[in-house]
Each structure stands twice: as C-alpha cells, then as structure tokens.
C-alpha cells in the first residue's frame, strides 16, 4: 500500500507538472524602407504597448513588430515616436524610458532609462534632442548618437509637445498648465513664456511663421479649473498673442493639432470630455488665414471614437485611429487630403501616435 501510494504520487506529480509555458514568440527579421509606424499605447499599467508598421509599398499592416523583432515588449504606455534617419526614438511613458529602434529592422538599439514620465522627443541636431516629461519640471537634453543625457533645462513645470523654430524650441505646459515656453536651443535656457487657455496640448508653425497653440481647456473638477478650449495664434518672435479663437462649448476637448505639408491648413480632433453630442465631433480642417472655427467637421466622427490623428508629410494622407473600447485592437482609417475614406485596418491596442518613414 505504502509503496504503491508513493509511486502513484510521483506519477501524479509528474503528470501535472507537464507543459504550460508561453510559446516562443514569432521572431522575425524585418527590412523595411517606407511606411508608417503606429504607436499602440496599450492600457495604462497593463504593459501591453506595441508597435505596428504599415508598409506603404505593399499596403499591409504588421502588428507587434517590436516584439517579433526583439522578443520583449515595448512596455507600459508607448506615447510618441521621433524618427532621425534610420533611428527612431520611442517614449514609453509609464515605463520611464525611451527606446531607440532601427527603423528598417525594428531592432532595439539602446535605452535611455531612469526617466520620470517621458512624453515627446524633439530633435534639434545630430547631437542634441529634448525630452519633455509629464511629471518632471525639467526638459532633459540628450545626444541621439550616444543616448547620453547631456544637460537639463529647468522649466519649473511639466512639459508636453515641442516644436522647433529657428534656434528655439517651443514647449507646451499641458498637464494642469496654461503656458507655452520658449527655449533657446543654443543655450538650453528658457527665455520666455506666454499664457494661453488651460491645458495647451499641441502646436504647429504655419507657412506665415505663426505659432498655433491648441488648448483643451481642462475639465470640470480639475484643480486648475475649466476654461474654454481655444486656438491661440502667437508671434513666435515677439511672443505676442495675435488671435485667440475660442471654442463654443466648455465641455469640448480638442486635441492633436497638425498641419499639412504645405503648412496652409491646420487639422485637429474635436470631441467632448463628457461624450455630449450637442456639437459635431470629428476631425476639423481650418485655413491658417482664417480666424473662425469651421461649422462642420471635415471628417465627421459619426459612430466612431476618434483617438489620434497623423498626417503624412509627403502625401498629406490623413490617418485617424479609433481605439474602440480600449480593450481590443483599434482601427486606423486612412483618408485622402480631401477627406475621402481610402481604407481601414486593425492596428493593436489603443493606436495613438503616427510616425512617417520616408525614403
């Protein structure tokens, strides 16, 4: 009895201990030339951010290309991507790091670790780039070649999107902020700032060399308070406000201000914080010579939920993502510069930022 029981026990344990490992990922070698990177943010704290690549020569989208090329995930909340020749920098916001990735092979090249909450990477030169940060009250300066941090710009508040204009970088203070900073890239010093409506989230510079700033206004209950969303046109040289275009609805939340290749039309997404539908949500287009908001969306949202937008700098094709319920693969819709739907495809979880790789 004892012996039998012991033998059976062993057999039993062995039987139960079989198997159950994660299958090897589908490792692949890539060699791409022209296409669009789609940064899938993933869910906050899930660590399921990923990289998709739309090959413009074949028209096919490939998901999870970073994992397939490297065997490990991007991390938690991939936020933006900046391309410099064959190198791309991806900020992984809630993992506190930036990955550098080869744009043709998608191979991981290096990591800038030890960050707080990186958002955007702005290239200044071959040896200088800036990192904005949601939590940190400084902008970090790094060398894109060596990935070493070379300087720190004390901003006193957190920073979001950046644009380069001559020897200056403009940075928005979005998170509970209401300013745009002007930073001298030669000295890495903040030289000036200007107040705009609450929570400026994005900027562009138009063909007239005017700086357009889009503020979402914040939300009801925010410690900063709530403001009307606005487009503010600024003279970047004198740092004067030229025009302020207010949005009519205080619960509206426009974001993702972009400009086309010829820099004569701006685009933005406009919806509501609360899901109210008393205005037409969707993608809007507006001439840089106008100071009135368009009445109707250029690409109506209809029953979709537009999340982020990108515009191809060469072809002016418009890319808009729909994250659906945020718990499945989101859609990417492509539109002609005139707003006609070209096609749609499934990227991965919460498709956000678009980065364009040209030959």
């Amino acid at each position, binding site marked *: 009895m004892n012996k039998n029981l012991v033998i*059976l026990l062993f057999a039993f*344990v062995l039987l139960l*201990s079989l198997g*159950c490992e994660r299958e090897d990922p589908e490792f692949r070698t890539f060699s791409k030339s022209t296409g669009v990177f789609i940064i899938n943010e993933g869910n906050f704290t899930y*660590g399921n951010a990923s990289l998709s690549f739309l090959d413009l020569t074949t028209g096919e989208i490939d998901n999870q290309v970073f994992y397939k090329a490297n065997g*490990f995930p991007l991390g*938690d909340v991939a936020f933006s991507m900046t391309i410099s020749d064959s190198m791309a920098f991806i900020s992984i916001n*809630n993992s506190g790091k930036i990955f550098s990735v080869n744009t043709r092979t998608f191979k991981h090249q290096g990591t800038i*670790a030890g960050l707080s909450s990186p958002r955007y990477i702005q290239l200044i030169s071959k040896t200088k780039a800036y990192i904005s940060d949601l939590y940190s009250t400084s902008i970090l300066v790094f060398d894109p070649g060596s990935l070493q941090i070379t300087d720190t710009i004390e901003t006193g508040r957190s920073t979001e999107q950046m644009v380069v204009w001559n020897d200056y970088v403009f940075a928005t203070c979005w998170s509970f902020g209401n300013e745009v900073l002007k930073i001298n890239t030669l000295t890495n010093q903040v030289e000036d700032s200007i107040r705009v409506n609450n929570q400026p989230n994005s900027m562009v510079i138009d063909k007239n060399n005017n700086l357009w700033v889009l503020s979402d206004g914040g939300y009801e209950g925010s410690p900063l308070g709530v403001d009307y969303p606005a487009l503010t046109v600024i003279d970047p040289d004198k740092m004067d406000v030229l025009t302020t275009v207010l949005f009519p609805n205080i619960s509206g939340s426009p974001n993702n201000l972009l400009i086309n290749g010829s820099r004569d039309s701006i685009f933005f997404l406009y919806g509501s*914080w609360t899901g109210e539908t008393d205005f037409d949500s969707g993608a809007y287009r507006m001439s840089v010579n106008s100071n009135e908001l368009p009445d109707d969306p250029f690409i109506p949202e209809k029953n979709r939920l537009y999340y982020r937008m990108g515009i191809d700098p060469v072809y002016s094709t418009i890319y808009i993502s729909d994250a659906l319920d945020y718990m499945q693969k989101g859609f990417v819709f492509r539109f002609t510069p005139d707003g006609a739907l070209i096609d749609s495809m499934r990227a991965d979880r919460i498709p956000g930022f678009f980065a364009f790789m040209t030959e």
Partner: protein
Amino acid sequence: MKLAAVHIIAIFILFGSGIPLHAQEKLNDTLRIKAVSIRGNLSMTSANIRQVDSLEIQNNQGGSLADLLAKNAPVFIKTAAPGSLATISMRGTLASHTQVSWNGIRINSPMLGQVDFSLIPIFFTDQIQILSGPVSTLKGSGGLGGHIDLASHGKWGEAFYGSLTNTIGSFKTYRILAEAGGGGSSFQTRVRLFHEQSENDFPFLNTANGLFNRVKQQNADFSKKGLMVQAFYQPNAKHLIGIHAWLQSSNRSLPPIMSYEGIGRNEYQNDSQIRISANWQFASGAFNSKLNSGITVDRLDYYLAHQTGGGLLVNYQTESISQSIFNNYQGSLYLSEKHKLKVHIHGNYHKVEIIDQKSGSGYNADRGEVGIQVMMEQFWTRQFKTYALIQQDWIQKSQIPLIPSIGLAYQFIPNLLELKASAGRNFHLPTLNDLYWIPGGNPDLLPEEGYLADIGLHAMLSADSIWRLEAEITGFASYIDYWILWKPGEFRYWSPQNLNTVLIKGFETSIHTSVQLNKIEAKLRANYTLTHTNQLDSENNTLAQLIYIPIHKATVFLHLARNAYYLNYSYTYTSERFTSTEEEFSLHSLPAFSLHQISLGRKQALLGLNTDLHFQINNLFNADYQSILWRAMPGRHYSINLTIQF
C-alpha cells in the same frame, strides 16, 4: 481493500478531474446552540453550498482566504503579487459580484463593491461556506456570482486554551499567530492576534526589459496585523449572545510593472478595517431567531509618487473612508413537520468619503438599503425537498424589482444519488464609485440584473468507516443584463454604463475520496471548473471570453498521514486568460500555469503541549508565470512553521 484504495486514486489520475468539497453541506446559519431539534436534512435544499473542509482550513492557517480559495475552490483568484490585492471571480463574474459576509455582516467595500481576499486571514475564520450561483440569495441579494459566508466561533467546552504559531519563510517573511481563550459552560471568550511581514523581494527573470536579467522584486514589502476579540454568553440552551470585533491594518508597497526602468517611483496602499458584529440567537422548539447588528469602518489610503529631477512628485494621495451599519433579523419556524418558514429583514446604511489630497477632488456619498426576504422550505418526502424565496429590496426609497429564487433536491437513490437544482433572479447594485467617482461617475446607473440557474448530481459511496467517495457535477448558466462597464467617453474620460449583456455557462465537477486503513489516512480532493463568460452583442451573438477569466481551472489536494507524520500536496491549474476583448491567443493572452505546493509535517505531544512542525515548498517546480499581465510572481520558495498548542 488496499487495492481498492489504490484503484480509486488511479482512476482519479486517469480522469484527471477535479475536487472537492462537499463534506458537510448544511445551511449552518446558526452559531452553537445546544439542543436544537433539527428536522430534516437541510443540505437537501442547498444545490450549491459547499463548506470548506476543516482540514483545509487547518492546513492554510497562516495564509489568507485568497490562498485557500485559489487552491481548494472552484473560483479564480487574481492577484498582482503575493500579499497584494487579491480579487475573486465566481462562476465567471466580476469581483464585485461575489458578496462576502462575516458573522452576519457584509464586508464588501461599499466604495468598490469587492473584497480584498488577501486581507482575510484564515486564522480568523472557523467556517467558510461557498454559495455559488442562485443559492447566494439565501444570504441576500447582490451575489450574481455567489456568496462567501465566513464565521468565527468560540470553542465551547474548553476552560482555557491557547496556541502560538511562528512561521519563517523565504524573502524575509515572518508570521506570528497567537490565540487564547476559554470560559465556562455559559461564558466564553476568544482572542486571536496575527502579525505578518515580508520584504517580498523575490528574484525573477525579467523578460520585459530587453535585458533578460535576473532581478529582485522592488517595492513589494508588506506588513499586516490584526486582532479579533470575541465574547459569547449562553445563559441557557435557548439563548446565545455573541460580540465579535475584528481590527486589522496593513501597509503594502505596490511593485512596478516588469518593464519599468524609470528613475524611481513610490506606490503604496494602507488599509485598516474595524468590524464589529453583535448577535443574539434564540431557539425554542420549532422557532429559531437571530438578531444581528454591526458596523464596519474601512479606511484605504493610496499613494503614488514619481521621482523627478527636481524631487518627488506626488501624483495621487487618496484617502477614503467607508462606514457601514448593518441590522438583520432572521426568524425561522417549522410550521409543520414538512414546512419551514424563514423571514429575513435587513436595514443597512453605507457612507463613503473619498478625497485626493493632491488634486482636491473626491466625493461624499451615502446609501440606505432595506429589504425583506420570505422563504418557505417544503419537505415533501424523505427524498424530495424544495425551497422558494422572494426578496424585496428598497434602495434610497426606490424599489428594486422582486428577487425570486427556487430550488429542489431529490434523492433518486437514498443516501447514494441526489439531484439538485436551483434558479432565480438577482440584482447587483452599482458601487458608490460607479455612481459618484470624479470624474466619470454615473448616478443614472441601473442595478445589474441576473437570471441564474444550475442543476447538479451528487453521488456518495462509502464502506463502513474505511473509505468514502463523493462526486458531484453541476452545470450552471447565468444571463446578466445591464452589466456595468467603465468605458471611455470621447477623449480620456472613462465612465461606467449599463452596457453589456453577458452569458455565462459552464460546469463544476468535484471528487473527494478518503481512505482510513490501519495507521494510514489518505484524503484526495479534486475539482475542475469550465467557465465560458461571454458578452452578447445586440443580436445575441456570443462575443469573446471576458478578460482575466480562465476557461479551465483545476485543483487537487492530497493529504497523507501516518502516525505523527503527514504530507500535504496541492496542485492548481489555471488555463490561458485573455487580457483583450478579442478572444485571441496572442501576446495579449496569458499562458496557462500550474502550481504545486508540498508540505511535510510532524505532530507531537511534548511536555504536555501539542506541537506541529512542518516544512513547506511553494511553487515546487519553479514555474515562471503571471497572474496579471507583466506582473512578476515568485518562483520556488519555502517556509517552516511551528505551532504549539495547549
């Protein structure tokens, strides 16, 4: 007979199916009243009430209810790390769909609706009943998945007793359990204390950072301490008065996700609970009544800060306090030999205050609930019994639709084969966070509405007192409408809505066998659960399995004892889980995992004391697994445990 025992185990291995528990299934809603006449076998009316075996409770004395249920029950426990928040899924539902009560009062958080099972020490519980599916209405409304009823008792008949348990484990884990109690025939007291702390800095292979290096878990330390004091007064056989106080606090650091390589972050959660319950039970002849009042005060502080170049930036510093008052009256009366009437009236009040000191946002809210339940049990014959109940609840003066529930038990072959079935409707109220959270709370939410049914067969075979075999299979189905889901509105703003319709179906099967031969005692329990939980679209097409709910779960528990020595072995299998609403086996799904635990012990009388020394190996085969996506779990680890009792 030896051969028979071996065969039973061999058959079990071949069929590899599941467990357990069905030892004493009594609707044990009374404490310890002497000389109460029991008419009929109440187990007949309980289609799916399982009482966790005292051996399993004893074997998990140092652990939490999360550990015990994960290893021994047909439920799924989800946890981000040892010691951290552990939530339950019963019959394919969400954590808030399982109601939990202790000595007559609900301990679900009114703010979140759920219970953190890692904060319920087994040492504080003497009886655990699992009411799955429709029968949960026997304990009130809200348990769309089920109800777990915990009870802490006194030890009548012992003039003075005490025990001390010391545990030392891997990752600088230390635990002390102490109890003392005693009294006479009419008065008893019992005091229990526990303290546990762990650095919890287990090593793991980090496959998420590109380095594939072996690192130590950071910021996962915890400490927990608790005190339970109970006093019982039984002036005569008809009355029993009990007062129970359970005080507990815990401090837990929350570790970062595996891919984190940032400058540093500090995240922690501090919980404290005060639970006081007072009961008066009266039994006389055919009449039995129980009056219960209680209060709970739960405090939860959450803190998250990130290091920045300019110092620490606090992101959240949230303080919340939930206070509840409970009043229950239950009366039961045998109207005749064949009819038993039960009435249950309750009036509860909840109040929540939550504020984020960082942003200044938060909410204050309260809710009153009253309800009445009437239940009739009918003993048609010795083999056929039924029950029917109806409950009416009012929430903040608004009436919830009626909750009816019925059940039957029929013994095809007396004491051998029994059919059990139950069905009913149930409602689950939105939590106060669902209603009032800023931003996004939706005060217009409706209660979730469920239609639940199950049917099962229970067989029992035994030969004298030498061996015993019980097997059970139960099929279940639930249709839940107005399922609350937090969804993004346009742009970043999440808000709960009564969006989904969910269909849950599956079955639970269990087997339990025990053999007593000469000096050897062997017990084997196993169970297997199949759960399909699918959202339905507007045309009632089945969509994907809901996230984090495994389709298959199996557990096995084996106990062997000979003279003073004993060996316990437990096995848990959890199948692949999706973390996406697409049912896709991809990087968004978590691989299946198997966990093994073994312990070897010796019980001995020494200097008039009873001692129990055992050594335990957890995750015996060093499985690399995740319970939550990209959250590290420990590999093989050990503990040694010494208990001294008098």
